[in-house]
């Protein structure tokens, strides 16, 4: 069918099953914005307020659904504003297809108006990128882009489309991409070896990462854990892959993870690492990490195998396929003494940290109290989108996750300003599902302009600002490691309530514990967008903590 490139771009997106895209118009992408009129019934476009909002919204959408998130922006500054989000998606393995307009192909390399070498700039932070200068290439390249974004270890793909390519005519025929490389084949010997290690283990330990959620292998993980009675811990990005309330669940791994979950890494005899990459936040000092254990690494990306931690048995495959094959060889087992060690650690952590946090009696509200109350009131039936900092760690530690993909956060890059736009994306992914953004006063101001999207689209996103008037996490480090020499971590904040109301969004501020319960109920019962600002303890620290350079067995409770 004859059409112009711009129409072909949008038709290709429709063919790929795209229902929502996030974007911001500009000169170089105008032909495509014009063509949006013709597809408004099939494709919903959300106008953001900053291109960074577009890419984080696309991420939120992708993280909530597993589908590729799509954003579309103009050339030059529009494109460069995507870079942070693309880097974020790269590190957290989020499938994205980012479309940037580009100046007319004859102007390339001339420092034309709003020209930027976005392909060159995003080479290190994309799985693949491509500049389209001929309209004919559009359908095949878009098909390839979606395939690459979704397949294997997902990641971001950028397509830079020149203005003349958007205006040129082509004969549109859509053919989905046919992969050339062969499918990963699992080594049966390795599967049997892994099973043998697990069956003979006295202290097996299952470490669940993002790969389990990506592969939709939650059921298989549960089956393995239950059959052999193996304690399960999640990485930050693995949270919600295994229900928090389950008796086999022992906590979150990492710098601010749970006490037993970290400490007992150095007691386990077999570590079963599924879809996790032994990130430095999780391992601490590698010289003191699980030296006594045999490690089974179930991982789809060969580059992660033996990168940080030596693997004794490698299952190079999708988590779902690997576990399905492994489970056949797993014998039922009990490890009561091993489980008891985790229970003892939990008791210690509860006494020294958790009780004081969730049942606080301090003058000021604690962040953990809020999270605990939200968890109870929603019964885990909500998607939590968190920003970066102390509140992020508290939310990860104290919310009881029940359903897969109900925890969305920026882990690898740790991008402040992520949560507000990502919550928009997550809400559009599941409009009838409760989406609650938990944000600090610092991160909230980084993409505050996206409140405009919530107002314009009337999205009933719930925003909880945990306001301690500091850049909390940095302040904590300055207190613990820099003799409390606070350097530019104190924030003089505006009146967030007035700002929200300025956008036409209902907002309330809470400072007293006695008002908290009603305020949370009001927010949750509302069918409209809602911003709840909660003034929390100004100088509180997040514990446990594995300080930089320390081993997992040197985790500090205070």
């Amino acid at each position, binding site marked *: 069918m004859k059409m112009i490139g711009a129409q072909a771009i949008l038709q290709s997106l429709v063919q790929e099953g795209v229902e929502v895209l996030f974007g911001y118009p500009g000169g170089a992408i105008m032909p495509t914005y014009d063509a949006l009129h013709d597809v408004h019934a099939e494709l919903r476009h959300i106008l953001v307020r900053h291109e960074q909002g577009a890419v984080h919204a696309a991420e939120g959408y992708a993280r909530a659904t597993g589908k590729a998130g799509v954003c579309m922006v103009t050339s030059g500054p529009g494109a460069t504003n995507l870079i942070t989000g693309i880097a974020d998606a790269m590190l957290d393995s989020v499938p994205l297809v980012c479309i940037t307009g580009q100046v007319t192909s004859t102007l390339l390399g001339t420092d034309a108006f709003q020209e930027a070498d976005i392909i060159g700039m995003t*080479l*290190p932070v994309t*799985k693949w990128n491509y500049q389209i200068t001929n309209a004919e290439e559009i359908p095949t390249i878009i098909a390839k882009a979606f395939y690459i974004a979704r397949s294997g270890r997902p990641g971001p793909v950028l397509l830079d489309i020149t203005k003349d390519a958007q205006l040129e005519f082509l004969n549109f025929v859509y053919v989905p991409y046919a992969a050339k490389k062969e499918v990963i084949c699992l080594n049966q010997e390795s599967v049997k070896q892994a099973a043998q290690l697990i069956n003979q283990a006295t202290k097996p330990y299952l470490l669940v990462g993002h790969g389990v959620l990506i592969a939709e292998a939650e059921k298989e993980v549960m089956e393995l854990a239950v059959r052999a009675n193996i304690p399960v811990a999640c990485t930050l990005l693995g949270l919600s892959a295994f229900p928090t309330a389950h008796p086999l669940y022992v906590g979150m791994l990492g710098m601010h993870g749970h006490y037993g979950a970290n400490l007992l890494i150095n007691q386990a005899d077999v570590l079963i690492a599924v879809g996790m990459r032994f990130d430095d936040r999780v391992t601490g000092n590698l010289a003191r990490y699980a030296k006594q254990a045999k490690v089974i690494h179930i991982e789809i990306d*060969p*580059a992660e195998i033996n990168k940080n931690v030596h693997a004794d048995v490698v299952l190079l495959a999708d988590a779902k396929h690997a576990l399905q094959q492994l489970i056949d060889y797993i014998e039922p087992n009990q490890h009561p003494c091993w489980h008891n060690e985790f229970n003892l650690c939990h008791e210690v952590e509860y006494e020294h940290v958790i009780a004081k946090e969730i049942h606080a009696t301090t003058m000021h509200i604690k962040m953990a109290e809020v999270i605990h109350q939200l968890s109870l009131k929603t019964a885990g039936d909500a998607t939590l989108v968190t920003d970066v900092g102390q509140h992020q760690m508290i939310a990860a530690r104290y919310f009881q996750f029940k359903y897969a993909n109900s925890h969305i956060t920026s882990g690898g890059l740790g991008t402040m300003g992520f949560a507000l736009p990502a919550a928009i994306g997550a809400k559009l992914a599941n409009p009838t599902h409760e989406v609650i953004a938990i944000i600090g006063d610092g991160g909230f101001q980084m993409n505050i302009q996206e409140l405009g999207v919530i107002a314009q689209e009337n999205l009933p996103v719930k925003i909880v600002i945990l306001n301690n008037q500091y850049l909390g996490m940095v302040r904590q480090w300055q207190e613990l490691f820099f003799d409390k020499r606070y350097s530019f971590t104190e924030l003089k904040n505006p009146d967030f309530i007035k700002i929200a109301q300025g956008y036409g969004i209902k907002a309330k501020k809470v400072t007293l514990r006695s008002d908290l319960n009603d305020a949370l109920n009001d927010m949750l019962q509302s069918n409209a967008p809602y911003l709840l600002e909660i003034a929390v303890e100004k100088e509180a620290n997040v514990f446990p903590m594995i300080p930089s350079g320390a081993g997992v067995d040197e985790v500090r409770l205070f």
Partner: protein
Amino acid sequence: MQYIYVISVVTENTLRVLQRIAGIFARHRLNIEQMNVFETKNKGTSCFSIVIHSDAKTTDRLIKQLQRIIELLEVKISSQIPLQE
């Protein structure tokens, strides 16, 4: 232990592949001592021969990261010679 590595890479002959490969070397702070690039007799397929000085661990990481490149067909270490200071 430092070695002289000769690394052979076979890729599709498309724009930016060289830049993507060079970027991965640079990220590991590996100086490209020598590089030869040419299109093979198979039209559309290029061959790279790259010489670096590095240790086994870094080179292993490098090779695996090169394998993530979409246009890459094959990569291997052709030679590994102990570097004499």
